[in-house]
């Protein structure tokens, strides 16, 4: 087994393996999204975050503009404090709405940002004041049953 | 002045409580060829390993030059081993390398010589054993005798002071045996080295060695020149040298009385 042949085959092996790993990273995984860009941090408080997790996407007009960085419980206000990292390229006005939506009927949850009309923009460590909680299925069902019950009582 | 290049002093060695050697004393003078003989399992090959530092004695000392082998540090032991060359029983050539590469191996590992010099050295060693033409064959393509000769060339590649042979005649045809005898003698004289030959081949060994040590029951049972030993009246030496069937080394493995054994079974 001579040296040049071995070197050639090992080189080919290494090349296709690296190509496969790159392929996995980009095509299969989600490395190409803006996790690695420059970001700025804002916070938002919710009464109920439902199934929101760290690394859940933050979307505006359906496009991913950031990620949920961390979720903490505020013992003073009994609310959930969510830290978001938003792409520096996109500026949002200070009266932006942050809502928790569900992708599809039973999919994973994400934060949707709807811009308001203010002229000032959110800066690093600002707080989004307008928030809407996640829709919790059980509450919806009990509300529906309750309203049905009151209807039939009329 | 014949100083001794290897001295074995009151050596005891064994495994797990059972002693193989119980106080062995040997000296190997410079420039001589010494044979170590004995029955199978008497610990002859183990002595070579003790000299080479692969095993540590339980008691006593093995000295090479002035240094006690088992007291050397790892690096010092490596330096000591470079003075030794060993020929293993089956040749122990590296099966993935060619003949040339096998002989070049110790040279490459221990020196920084340029390729051209290495080539000259390898050719010289192969020529000495008569296998220069076989240099491009793979180690697996050689016959037993040829493999043994290549292994010999490899063992002397760095011109060692001590050459050790582990059963060099085992399994060889008469021609190859004669060749190996010749080589051992010539190489020893040409290099000014000391050769230790472990063997139980009396006829071949007695023809060319200078001194013989006999090992039995863990001690040196007899020693002397081949001529002295041929005349010896010691029962063990006599049985060994003349190849007698029965003597101190019995023919029958320990067993109860023959008659009892045969009849006993029938009575059950």
């Amino acid at each position: 087994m001579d040296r040049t042949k071995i070197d050639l085959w090992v080189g080919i092996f290494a090349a296709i393996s690296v190509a496969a790993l790159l392929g996995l990273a980009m095509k299969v995984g989600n490395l190409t999204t803006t996790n690695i860009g420059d970001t700025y941090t804002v916070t938002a408080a919710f009464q109920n975050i439902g199934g929101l997790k760290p690394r859940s996407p933050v979307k505006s007009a359906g496009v991913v503009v950031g990620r949920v960085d961390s979720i903490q419980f505020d013992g003073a206000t009994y609310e959930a404090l969510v830290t978001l990292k938003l792409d520096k390229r996109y500026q949002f006005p200070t009266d932006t709405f942050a809502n928790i939506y569900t992708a599809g009927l039973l999919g994973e949850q994400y934060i949707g940002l709807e811009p308001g009309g203010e002229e000032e923009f959110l800066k690093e460590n600002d707080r989004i004041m307008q928030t809407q909680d996640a829709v919790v299925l059980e509450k919806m069902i009990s509300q529906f049953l309750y309203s049905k019950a009151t209807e039939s009582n009329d | 002045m014949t100083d001794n290049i290897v001295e074995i002093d009151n050596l005891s060695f064994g495994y797990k409580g059972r002693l193989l050697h119980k106080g062995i004393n040997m000296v190997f003078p410079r420039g001589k060829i010494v044979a170590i003989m004995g029955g199978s399992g008497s610990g002859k090959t183990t002595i070579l390993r003790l000299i080479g530092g692969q095993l540590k004695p339980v008691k006593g000392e093995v000295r090479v030059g002035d240094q006690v082998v088992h007291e050397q540090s790892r690096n010092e032991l490596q330096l000591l081993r470079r003075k030794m060359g060993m020929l293993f029983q089956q040749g122990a050539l590296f099966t993935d390398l060619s003949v040339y590469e096998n002989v070049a191996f110790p040279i490459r590992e221990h020196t920084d010589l340029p390729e051209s010099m290495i080539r000259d050295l390898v050719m010289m060693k192969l020529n000495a054993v008569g296998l220069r033409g076989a240099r491009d064959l793979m180690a697996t393509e050689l016959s037993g005798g040829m493999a043994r000769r290549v292994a010999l060339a490899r063992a002397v590649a760095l011109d060692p002071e001590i050459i050790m042979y582990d059963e060099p005649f085992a399994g060889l045809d008469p021609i190859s045996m004669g060749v190996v005898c010749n080589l051992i003698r010539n190489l020893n004289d040409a290099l000014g080295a000391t050769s230790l030959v472990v063997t139980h081949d009396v006829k071949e060994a007695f023809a060319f060695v200078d001194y013989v040590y006999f090992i039995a029951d863990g001690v040196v049972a007899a020693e002397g020149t081949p001529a002295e030993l041929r005349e010896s009246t010691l029962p063990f030496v006599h049985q060994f040298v003349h190849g007698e069937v029965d003597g101190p080394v019995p023919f029958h493995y320990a067993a109860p009385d023959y008659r009892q054994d045969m009849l006993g079974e029938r009575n059950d």
Partner: protein
Amino acid sequence: MTKRTGAKLTAVLQSIGHRLIDQFWRLGSASRLFAYTLLSSGESLRRPFLVIREIYFTGVLSLIIILVSAFFVGMVLALQGYNTLQKYGSSEAIGVLVALSLVRELGPVVTALLFAGRAGTAITAEIGLMKATEQLAAMEMMAVSPIARVVAPRFWGGVISMPLLAGLFSMVGILGGYLVAVPLIGVDGGAFWSQMQDAVDFREDIVNGFIKSCVFGVACTMIALFEGYDAPPTAEGVSRATTRTVVNSSLAVLGLDFVMTSFMIS
């Protein structure tokens, strides 16, 4: 309990205890060999060709079995997955199923098992035979450390080859799944890839799978090397050692997989 069953029971317990102690002793020897191998790796760095040669023998020569197996595994995953998913109307999630199964578990684990069977046994047999024909002893007598020259390069060759093979396995498996799902079954190609990208996270799935395959690489290669180095220098000894390599590697891989997965999921 009669005296006789008492004696038999004691004998059984004694043999179990003896075997257990034996295993611990072997584990100690294997750890010692591992430590020596790492310490003797200087030679492998100074002469990279030794390692490259071993990457060839463990990696390149395993390519065929890895790639063919990966292809079939991916195709079967797609078939079985489609069979179940379409009952819930979620047949478009088939890309997710194939990709996650392969990247998280099947890629690293099946590659490791195949590696142990092919490359592991080859390493064990080679080293066992070198020991039996006294090649290792000859090297020692020539003042060359057999661990630095023979064991360490094979260790690094295996450790480097394994993650590369696992990555190839996952990728080819996904391609196999794609070929069954899209042209054959008729799932939408775009949905196949986009749902997969949404579900597969680089750090949690791909990197974790990579870490797993690296750990398996160390375990399988080390087991193969130890069994070869420790084998009795006879034909029967070497053949038993190769069997032990496959069995012990497989058990180690599955056990480590459980331990690592539980850490990674929490």
